[in-house]
């Protein structure tokens, strides 16, 4: 691990001032950053510990929605009664992520910023080529072992999967990220790789995530997070779906639908084609299964990950039907 100095920030302003130092990185829970420093991927000169700033970990839920401080722990949000009632998919995305220990450490802001688990990205000694780590150096994953790489949102430069679960639920329910004085939709916060895969977020120099805001909606209240993994627990998603459903007064007409996919794309992937195809129609297994296939429109498989293109729509259909009481 490269040498670094350690500073504690006493306030968000303090953090911004310290973070202006060249080579400085913000340290919150540390579960991603220390791991990547040990891998030789992250090479900070200075760590600015923001984990002791008070007042940034509040969780507030009211009729309008939820506001979650950036330093709230994953476990606190997963267990929060108000979140579980108004945003079950969000709470479930967190309780199914990582392990109990990691959920006690990792913060909501840091969770959003977690880096890809692409094994080529994480091993610079064995695989020098990585456009995300070293722009222009190439991609060792393309043509390599690609079982867990993305099928949606990929480019010639990068096929790394966005690994998080929370952001998938957030993107489904139109959540926004607060960067101090500026607010940006989660959907616009994450950037597809294109030819600049090193740039993953619309976060500017000197900016820090201070909170996440999620508007309340009937679809968010009736929602679920389904996650399929290679082992039952403590594993990243092979595919995941955050789905919310609002039915009309007849109990059969789909009034609102939210669908987002994780584990299959380079960013949290909102599936508006599925939503648009089903909104206003009757909830029926056949039409739900047919429309769910639109979730992977435009997917491009690598050598080892074509199964994700079959898996993801099935997950979407199962989530919609189970919310509607039909599965």
């Amino acid at each position, binding site marked *: *691990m490269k*040498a*670094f*100095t*350690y500073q*504690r920030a006493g306030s968000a302003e303090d953090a911004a001032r310290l973070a202006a130092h060249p080579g400085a990185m913000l*340290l919150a829970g*540390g*579960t991603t950053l*220390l*791991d990547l*420093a*040990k*891998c030789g991927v992250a090479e900070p000169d200075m*760590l600015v*510990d923001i*984990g*002791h700033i008070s007042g940034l970990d509040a969780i507030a839920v009211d009729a309008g929605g939820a506001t979650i401080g950036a330093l709230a722990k994953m*476990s606190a949000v997963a267990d929060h009664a108000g979140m579980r009632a108004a945003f079950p998919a969000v709470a479930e995305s967190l309780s199914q992520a*990582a*392990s*109990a*220990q*990691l959920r*006690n*450490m990792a913060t909501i802001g840091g969770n959003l910023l977690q880096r890809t688990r692409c094994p080529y990205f994480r091993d610079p000694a064995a695989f020098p080529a990585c456009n995300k780590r070293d722009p222009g150096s190439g991609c060792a994953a393309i043509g390599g072992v690609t079982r867990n790489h993305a099928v949606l949102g990929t480019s010639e430069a990068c096929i790394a999967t966005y690994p998080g679960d929370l952001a998938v639920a957030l993107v489904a329910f139109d959540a926004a990220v607060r960067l101090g004085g500026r607010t940006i939709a989660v959907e616009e916060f994450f950037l597809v790789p294109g030819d600049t895969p090193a740039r993953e977020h619309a976060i500017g120099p000197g900016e820090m995530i201070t909170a996440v805001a999620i508007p309340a909606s009937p679809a968010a209240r009736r929602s679920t997070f389904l996650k399929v993994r290679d082992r*039952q*627990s*403590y594993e990243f998603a092979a595919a995941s779906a955050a789905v919310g459903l609002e039915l009309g007064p007849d109990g059969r007409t789909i009034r609102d639908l939210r669908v987002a996919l994780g584990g299959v794309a380079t960013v949290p992937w909102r599936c508006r084609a599925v939503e648009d195809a089903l909104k206003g129609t009757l909830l029926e297994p056949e039409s739900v299964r047919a429309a769910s296939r639109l979730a992977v429109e435009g997917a491009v498989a690598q050598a080892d990950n074509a199964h994700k293109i079959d898996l993801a729509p099935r997950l979407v259909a199962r989530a919609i039907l189970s919310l509607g009481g039909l599965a």
Partner: protein
Amino acid sequence: MTTEITIELDINGRSETLTLDPRVTLLDALREHLGLTGTKKGCDQGQCGACTVHVDGARVLSCLTLAAQAAGRPVTTIEGLSAPGGELHPVQAAFLEHDAFQCGYCTPGQIMSAVACIREGHAGSDEEIREYMAGNLCRCGAYPHIVAAVRQAAEMAS
């Protein structure tokens, strides 16, 4: 050259002042600087749970925590679990009774995790214990006995 920092840690109720490289993890501070080798280093990258300790009463991974991050927060390790007279914690006793280990390397982490799991109220059924103990791997495969030990300790605590 790295500039060393001086920090004060609260380990099992004792105050410890250490001067160390800022890169030193809480795990290495415990084992290499304080001689508390009960906390184990398994993967050293947050995947196995062998290094589980409690910080501020919550179970965390000491391999992904800098010692400096823990300064000012109470830390409990496996050495701090038993009563002052040496009497075993009920979870330790349950692990012995159920033979919930083979080689024993993951055991301190399993026990620290189990104590927290029970305190959190996540040990209500075998299924729930398996889910909430998923962050602690046992390469010997002693899982059935671990679940039985946690279940018994949870029943005794309730």
